[in-house]
């Protein structure tokens, strides 16, 4: 992953409004693929997005998109932005709106037509694009917002809560579009408060809280960094009672819960110590372990843990 060139980069970026620090010494690089931006309200997500899209200038540090300052007009050619706000030129049709956005990006009439049709096709709105925006459902409005964001084929697409208010079928379609864009080598930054979405959607996750970047990377990488993060591990074995007794002897295991008929749920304090011990036991005794799974490795669990740590 580290060999892939970054499409945009935050270098020690801080942003404050008066005495309030919105973003504090944040550094990261966006690479092709889907990156989830996760954080509670007031964490600094919006500020980060506004800095990336050139709506704000950093108080300290620099934000560069394809090696040009994000504040410059040139950088905006590389960025597509799907805002959170449900704002449109309501009197326009979806098609006219996307075409207008293409014209604003400097395309001539014919090029703008071609590009807007391609973008509408990508979000599967071609047949419904002639209706007035005011008559669209929330899901259709989200698609039109996405279409205007990708109409100029940008390298970086920033999506602020793109799945808000979209029905499950629409979600699946939009997620497919995000994946297509990522597969085409684009960097997709998705800000979302629905953490479950990130488990399946994001290749990487950035956790942000109180203006600071708590962690970033793939969920597995972040988990590995958090050696002392307690884990819940479910084991299916032929003789769960005997295995439970052995598990309780391990220092890294805090608690064991039997889940009949053949499962037990372990609360593990130090995963780094636990897994080698378990492997040793499994090799020594014949417990016939059929399945082992970490049940709380989700984005939400990791994020909860990080938040608790940040609070302390």
């Amino acid at each position, binding site marked *: 992953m580290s060999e892939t060139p970054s499409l945009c980069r935050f270098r020690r970026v801080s942003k404050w409004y008066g005495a309030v620090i919105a973003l504090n010494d944040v550094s990261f690089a966006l690479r092709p693929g889907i990156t989830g931006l996760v954080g509670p309200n007031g964490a600094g997500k919006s500020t980060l997005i506004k800095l990336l899209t050139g709506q*704000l200038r950093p108080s300290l540090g620099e934000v560069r998109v394809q090696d040009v300052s994000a504040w410059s007009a*040139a950088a905006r050619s590389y960025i597509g932005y799907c805002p959170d706000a449900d704002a449109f030129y309501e009197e326009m049709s979806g098609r006219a709106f996307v075409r207008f956005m293409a014209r604003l990006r400097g395309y001539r009439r014919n090029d703008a037509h071609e590009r807007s049709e391609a973008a509408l096709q990508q979000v599967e709105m071609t047949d419904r694009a002639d209706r007035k925006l005011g008559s669209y459902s929330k899901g259709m409005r989200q698609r039109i917002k996405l279409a205007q964001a990708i109409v100029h084929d940008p390298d970086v697409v920033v999506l602020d809560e793109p799945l808000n208010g979209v029905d499950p079928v629409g979600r699946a379609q939009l997620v497919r579009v995000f994946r297509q864009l990522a597969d085409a080598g684009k960097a997709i930054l998705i800000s979302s408060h629905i953490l479950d979405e990130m488990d399946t959607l994001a290749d990487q996750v950035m956790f942000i809280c109180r203006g600071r970047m708590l962690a970033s990377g793939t969920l597995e990488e972040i988990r590995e960094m958090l050696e002392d993060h307690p884990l819940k591990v479910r084991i299916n074995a032929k003789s769960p009672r005997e295995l439970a007794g052995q598990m309780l002897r391990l220092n890294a295991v805090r608690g064991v819960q039997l889940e009949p008929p053949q499962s037990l749920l372990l609360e593990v304090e130090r995963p780094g110590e636990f897994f080698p011990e378990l492997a040793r036991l499994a090799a020594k005794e014949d417990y016939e372990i059929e399945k082992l799974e970490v049940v709380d490795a989700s984005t939400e669990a990791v994020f909860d843990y990080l938040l608790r740590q940040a609070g302390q």
Partner: protein
Amino acid sequence: MSAEESQETRNEGKQQVIQADTSIWRGGLSGSICLAVVSFRRLFRSRQTIVSAMLLGFAVMVALAWSMRRGRTPEEFISQILIPVYTSFLLPIFCLCYATASIAAEREEQTLTYLLLSPLPRPLVYVAKYCSSLALALLWTMGGLILLCQVVGDPGQRTLAIVWPTVMASTFAYVGLFHLFGVMFRRATIVGFAYALFLENFVGSMPGIVKRVAVSFYTECMIFDSAAIFGLGPAGHHDEAMYLPISAAAAMPALWLIAAATLLAGIVFFSRHEYSGTS
């Protein structure tokens, strides 16, 4: 990499940046023309047009009623209708309606984000919006003046020939000023309205040179100067000794200077300002 190669790479990089800048300005020109056209259409179909039409309709009725009495003179038309009803009230209101709404409405409706996110250089966005509101304001101020002068008959027609350059210059000055308000203040329409009614009329009527901050002062000076052929000059509360008028030769450049300075200030402010809460 040798020093020569790295120098070559740097030069290529600079070349690319220059090319990118050039294409942005070239593409920006067609983008800003499109923006100006769309903005014009949106402003024309807005409630500002209804308000302007109602105000002009009311002014026309007042002028019609005024013209019922026989023997009206251009001097009377200027002092009783043109200055109090048109240049002091309608003219700034027409400009205010469109110039403050131009960017402030986009900000209020949160659609400004789309414009700020486009690769159009911000000065071009500002100029495009300015042009659309200026065109509409000119349509109303010049059209309104022609209509008003026509309905009152001869005194109006004789007045029209001498005051239209003043009205045009004032429109440019007011649009520049209110457009600047639109990018500077969150509630630009209220600020602009307070300015038009309070500062322009109150400060514009104060004795001494304080009134020189008001656009209406220069407008009136030009009207007095050009209407001297009808024997009109500052009188009553416009007593010359108190009013201290300036000549049209000085007032006209002052109006154009205000127009240019406010346009420039608006461009600079809009280009540098961070619209963090476009909501």
